[in-house]
């Protein structure tokens, strides 16, 4: 192995991509897994070979994993708390008077 390739690490030169596949028309793209590739074009081809060998999809997205900003599950301030005390956002919160239709 050449000295240069010794220095080449997968993570530096072949970063991680997250793969999303639309299984059929009418469905949203769904996360199916990840892979390594040096650029977007190869990531797309690798994703085709890795995740759609059995016609699992009609469309693929690949996104550099480093571009994803995620909420942290162990954040001390509960990130999702604001949603917990707003039951009035759900239709079941409201009393519908007897006999009212189409509501």
């Amino acid at each position, binding site marked *: 192995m050449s000295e240069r*390739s010794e220095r080449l690490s997968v993570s530096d030169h072949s970063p991680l991509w997250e793969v999303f596949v639309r299984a059929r028309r009418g469905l949203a793209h769904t996360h199916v*897994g990840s892979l390594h*590739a040096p*650029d977007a074009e*190869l990531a797309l081809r690798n994703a085709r*070979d890795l995740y759609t060998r059995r016609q699992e999809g009609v469309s693929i997205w690949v996104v550099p994993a480093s571009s994803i900003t995620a909420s942290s599950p*162990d954040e*001390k301030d*509960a990130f999702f708390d604001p949603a917990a005390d707003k039951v009035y956002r759900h239709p079941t919160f409201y009393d519908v008077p007897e006999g009212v239709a189409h509501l």
Partner: protein
Amino acid sequence: MYGNDFSGEDAPGGLLGEVEAAEAALRAAAERDRGAPGQDVDLAAYFAEVIDADQKIEPRDWMPEAYRRTLIRQIAQHAHSEIIGMQPEGNWISRAPSLKRKAILLAKVQDEAGHGLYLYAAAETLGISRDELVELLLEGRQKYSSIFNYPTLTWADVGAIGWLVDGAAIVNQVPLCRCSYGPYARAMIRVCKEESFHQRQGYEILHMLAHGTPAQKAMAQDALDRWWYPSLAMFGPPDGDSTHSAQSMAWKIKRFSNDELRQRFVDMCVGQAEVLGLTIPDPDLRWNDERQAYDFTQPDYAELMRVISGDGPCNRLRMEHRRRAHTEGAWVREAAAAYAAKQASKEKVAA
């Protein structure tokens, strides 16, 4: 269940049915999700609660360090097995007896590569890099399944690998679809669905040979004779000697003991061997009415330990081949990286 049922429909209670059930359970567990731990929750207690409730631990959740290490070791070993596992069968791609068989074998070996990659990706969610994983394999510091250190001497061996080796792998892996670690469970669901084609194609190869000329039948029998005990050994040492089992069961990484799974495999194979018209090489194999299971001869565990520690028939060959493939593929990785760098710098100039 497998192999003697070619209709494409899986009978209820079949392994594919179990995979579907595991997938449904995974969705149901997600429905019951308890959300993120609150502000003052003890993380270790929360972890234990999630495990108790049969819910999934996800990559960024807190987990005990030993849980993380156990998973990395197990998933990595599993991934390495898929990658090394391409070699015994790859040996027959150029000599498959027909174009149809060659195309099928190519697709199967490509699947094994894919399974290795799903699993490496699952391991990477635990904070180990792909580079480290590859290095651990190439330096022999992490193991792969001992079964791939046996040679494929005849075409019938390709059949025996599909039927027995993939069959044993499926029996091992179907319960892993319910593993407590989400990314591993999801990868296993995918892998198991694909493995069932592998097992059936192997069984079909043996079925054709076993119903062919006397020489072909003898070749099929010889393959069964050689692969039977190494396949039984795939389930690992007997429960009493298994070092990792108890803790893995408590963490719901593992769902059944080595001996339970081995028994399940034997019970499945007996009927399948009868349909083939081949004889399982075990004179003591017989139905035990009391246990409602077959009594059988245990594999040679001393041999298993020898093969694991590096002294099997093909250990050195497998590792040499993997190292060579890695070294000889370096220029492809370099070229792709150089091309990506060039494109990126061109875009920068244009912008």
